[in-house]
């Protein structure tokens, strides 16, 4: 069963990895991905992460189930924060575990590509000069990254 959480609090990657691997010795590969808030050259004060409560968890669960059907995973964790997040702070964590490295790597990339383009979260910028910023635009590159998994 995947671990899925949508929360305001920060997370600890080591704790999540340990929850998957502790007490077992059949895992050969663990990949973690941490997405962090960048300061955009000092112009960003914070990102405000809005989400659709309920659907966010449900959509991540759907994506996780797809990953588990595509790769032989021994563990999968996806945590996405919402609320105000300062530069340098983590936003999203994905952990995948498998017997072999290719499955762990591919599943983690797949999860991130899908989270980026399907999970109902939206980022608004707050500028360092106090001005209200824009909503971050979706990137075509992210749609392209997701599309490669349809092959």
């Amino acid at each position: 069963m995947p671990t899925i959480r949508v929360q305001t609090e920060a997370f600890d990657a080591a704790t999540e990895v340990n929850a998957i691997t502790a007490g077992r010795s059949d895992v050969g590969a663990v990949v973690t991905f941490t997405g962090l808030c960048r300061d955009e050259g000092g112009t960003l004060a914070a990102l405000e992460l809005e989400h659709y409560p309920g659907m966010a968890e449900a959509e991540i669960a759907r994506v996780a189930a797809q990953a588990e059907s595509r790769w032989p995973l021994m563990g999968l964790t996806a945590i996405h924060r919402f609320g105000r997040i300062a530069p340098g702070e983590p936003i999203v964590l994905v952990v995948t575990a498998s017997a072999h490295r290719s499955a762990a790597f591919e599943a983690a990339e797949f999860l991130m590509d899908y989270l980026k383009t399907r999970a109902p979260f939206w980022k608004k910028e707050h500028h360092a000069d106090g001005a209200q910023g824009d909503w971050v635009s979706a990137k075509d590159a992210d749609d392209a990254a997701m599309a490669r998994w349809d092959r």
Partner: protein
Amino acid sequence: MIMSELNLRYFAWVRERIGTAQETVVLPAGVITVADLLAWLKERGPEYAHAFERAEIIRAAIDQTHVPHETPVGTAREVAFFPPMTGG
């Protein structure tokens, strides 16, 4: 035929432009699909027209599942409209 109530939810700049996060409407006759619903909403006032001025980029979810605009609203309890997602 019973007039069914539908819960509408808006997120991110769709929410900001409309000025509300949530409202309940009674679906008028003739509104079959999500696209019909969007077209009907656009007529409700300038804030809706602004929010949905480029209807083709608006994403929709019925009962918390992504759907294309041609999907029938059917017996949905909740329809949400929002911009392309930018999480992760």
